[in-house]
C-alpha cells in the first residue's frame, strides 16, 4: 500500500530537511524565539530549531495549556488520587497504593494485606501490625512524611496522614523499635536499629 502513496516533493525553504521541531522550554531559558510566535496563555516559549535526525531524544515534556487534551471533568477525577509507593523489608519490588480511596487506618492495613498476600493483619494490644504467617516475622507500617522523617503509622488523624505521607514501608518489628513501637511479643530477630 505504501508504494501507492507517492511522496510528493513539497517546495520548502529548507528542502528535504524537516525544519519544524518544537521544543518546549520554560520561560527564562535563553531560547531563540521565532519572530512573532508568542503563546500568550501558556507558560512556555516555543523554539523552532533545525531538526537533526541524529538527535533521538524527543523534546522534554513541559506544561502546555490544554495539552494533553483531557476534559476538565476527567482531570478533576484523577486529581483526587494519591498514589504512594509501598515497600516491604525483604521484598525486591515496590507496589503503589492510592490513599485517596481509603478512609481509615484499618482500610490501609487491609489494603496492604491484600497487596502483600503473604501477610495477614494481627492485632497486638492496640498496635497495628502485619504478620507473615510463614516465618512469623512481624511488620510494622511506617511512612516517610513531607519533612523526610520516618514515622510510625497511626499517630495522627487519617486525613492529616494522607496529606503528609510520601511513601510507606513495612518494617520488620525489630527495625521499628526505635520509632517507639512497643516491644514485640516475638523475640526480636537480628540487630535492632535505633533512630
Amino acid at each position, binding site marked *: 500500500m505504501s508504494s501507492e502513496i507517492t511522496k510528493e516533493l513539497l517546495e520548502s525553504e529548507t528542502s528535504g530537511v524537516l525544519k519544524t521541531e518544537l521544543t518546549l522550554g520554560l520561560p527564562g531559558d535563553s531560547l531563540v524565539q521565532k519572530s512573532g510566535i508568542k503563546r500568550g496563555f501558556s507558560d512556555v516559549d*516555543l523554539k523552532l530549531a533545525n531538526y537533526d535526525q541524529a538527535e533521538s531524544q524527543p523534546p522534554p515534556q513541559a506544561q502546555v495549556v490544554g495539552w494533553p487534551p483531557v476534559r476538565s471533568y476527567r482531570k478533576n477525577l484523577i486529581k483526587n488520587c494519591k498514589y504512594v509507593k509501598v515497600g516491604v523489608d525483604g521484598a525486591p519490588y515496590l507496589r503503589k497504593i492510592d490513599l485517596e480511596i481509603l478512609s481509615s487506618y484499618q482500610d490501609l492495613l487491609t489494603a496492604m494485606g491484600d497487596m502483600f498476600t503473604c501477610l495477614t493483619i494481627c492485632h497486638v494490644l492496640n498496635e497495628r501490625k502485619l504478620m507473615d504467617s510463614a516465618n512469623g516475622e512481624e511488620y510494622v507500617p511506617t511512612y516517610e512524611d513531607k519533612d523526610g522523617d520516618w514515622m510510625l503509622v497511626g499517630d495522627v488523624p487519617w486525613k492529616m496522614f494522607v496529606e503528609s505521607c510520601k511513601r510507606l514501608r513495612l518494617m520488620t518489628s525489630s527495625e521499628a523499635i526505635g520509632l517507639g513501637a512497643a516491644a514485640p511479643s516475638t523475640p526480636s530477630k537480628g540487630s535492632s536499629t535505633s533512630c
Partner: protein
Amino acid sequence: MHSFQSMLNYFPEEVLEHVFDFLTSHRDRNAVSLVCKSWYAVERFSREKVFVGNCYAISPERLIARFPRFRSLTLKGKPHFADFNLVPNDWGGYVQPWIESIVRGGVNLEELRLKRMLVSDESLELLATFFPNFKSLVLVSCEGFTTDGLAAIASNCRFLRELDLQENEVEDRRGQWLSCFPDSCTSLVSLNFTCLKGEVNLASLERLVARCRNLRSLRVNNAVPLDALQRILAQAPQLVDLGTGSFVHDPDTESYNKLETSMQKCTSITSLSGFLDVSARCLPAVYPICGQLTSLNLSYAPGIYSDELVKLICYCNRLERLLVLDTIGDKGLGVVASSCKELQELRVFLSDVYGIGNTAVTEEGLVAISAGCPKLNSILYFCQQMTNEALIMVAKNCPNFIRFRLCTLNPTVPDAITMQPLDEGFGAIVKSCKDLKRLSISGLLTDQVFLYIGRYAKQLEMLSIAFAGDSDKGMLCVLNGCKKLKKLEIRDCPFGNVALLADMGKYETMRSLWMSSCEVTFGACKTLARKMPRLNVEIINENDQIEASFDDKQKVEKMYLYRTLVGPRKDAPGFVWTL
C-alpha cells in the same frame, strides 16, 4: 418531467407526512425539505426533532417559526476546544434565551439535549414549570446549575422519563433533590447522576427505583455505597444499563455476597460503567455478567492495574464498546484483542493527566487491537509513542474506521523507530478508511500529512490538528480537498492569512473553524468578516480588552468563526469581539 411533477402532487399531504414520519435523521429531513415547496411545507409542520449544532447559528424565534410543532431540541454551545480550557468559561452558550423563547412560542417541549452549554437553575425551573409534558433532559458537559435546579425538575415533571447528566459541573446544594421525586412518579426509564458529587438520600433512591418498573438505565454517583447498590439491584433486575457507585467493600461480608447474588440475577445488563471508587477485590462480583456486556466503561477507575483489568475483560466476549485507562498497558490490550472479537469502539484514556510521566501504552497495543478486532470502527488512543509502520498496519487491518483519534503525550514526537514524521502513517489511515468522518492527528507532522488528508479523506467531517504542518499549504490542502468538512479546529500550527482567505466561501459550507496560536492576523480576520456577512468571526482575547489598540498586523491569539443566519450575537462578553 411534467408527469413526474403531477405524480408528486397526487399524494395528499397526509400521505407525505406519513412517509416523512419514517425519516428520523435530521439530515434526511433537511434533504427532503429541499425537494420542492410543498415537501418543504409538509416537512416543516411534521418535524418533531430539531438538531442545532451551533446555538448561535440560528435564533429560537426563527426555529419556532419554521418548525412550530417540534417537541425535541438538541443544542450545542461552546466549541470543542473548550473541553481543554482553551475557551473562557463565560464565552457564551446560554440556554436561557432559548427556553424563554420556546415558552413564549407555545411549543410543547418534551425533550431537551444540551452539550457544552451554560444552564442556570432558572432555566431548569422554567422547563419544569412551563412544559407539562416534559419527558427527557440530557445534559452533557454543561455547567452553571446546582442541585436546586434538579430538584425543580424532579418535583414538577410529572411524566419525566429521562434525566441524564453526563460529565457536568454541578454545584451541590445539599437539598436532597432526589427526594423531590413525588411518590406518584413512576415513569422514569433512565436516570444518570454519576457526575454529582454530593450525597443523595439512599432510602429515597431505593423507593424510586422500586416504583419505576420501566427503569432501564441507572447510573448512580460515588456517594452510593455498595450495599445500597445491592438493595437497588435486588429491586431492579430488569436493568439494561448500570453505573455503579462506590465499589469498595470488604468482600468477606454478607452484603458483598448478597451483591454477587443480586448481580447474577441481572441478566439484562449489557452496559456497565461507574467505578469511580473501586477496590480490585470487589471486581469479581461483576464476573457473572461480563459475558452479556456489550459496553464497559472502566475509564474512571485509576486504581485498577492491568492484571486485574484483564481478569475482567477476558470474560467479556460480546463487548462492542470499551473505555479504559492506559493502565491497561500493551499487554492488557493484547488480551482485549484476543477476547473481544466484536469490539467496535475503543477509548484508551490517560491516567496521568498532567502528562508528566509515561504511559504504559504504545503503538504495540494499537496494532494488537487492530489485528484482533476486525470490526473496530472508532478509536480514541492516548499513547506514549507511535510509528508509521504501526499505523500502516492498523490501516490495513481496519479499513472501517469512522472515527480515528490519536493523541501522543508529546505532541510533536516523531516515529519512535525511524525518527521520521508520522505523515506516512496517517496517510495510510486516510487512504484505507474511506468512510472516515472524524480524525485527530498527533506527533511530528509536516505539510505532507495534509496533502494526504486533502486527497483521500473525502468523507471527513471533523478534523483536529495541533502542533503540525509547515506552511499554509497544509491548511489549503485540507480546505480544498475535504469536501464534506464541517468542523476544523487548529491550534499551534504555522497556518496564516493566505490559507485563511483563500476560499472564504468554504466556511459557509462548514459549521465552524477554530484557530488558536497560529499565524493569522487581525487584519485578515477583519477582511474575512467584511466579505462574509453570514459568518461570525470572533476574536477571543482575554489579555487585552482595548479594541482600539489592535494593529492589523498583530497576530490573533484565538479565532472562532461560524456560519450564522442571525448575525453577531448580543451576549458576547467583553473579551470576545465579533468583527
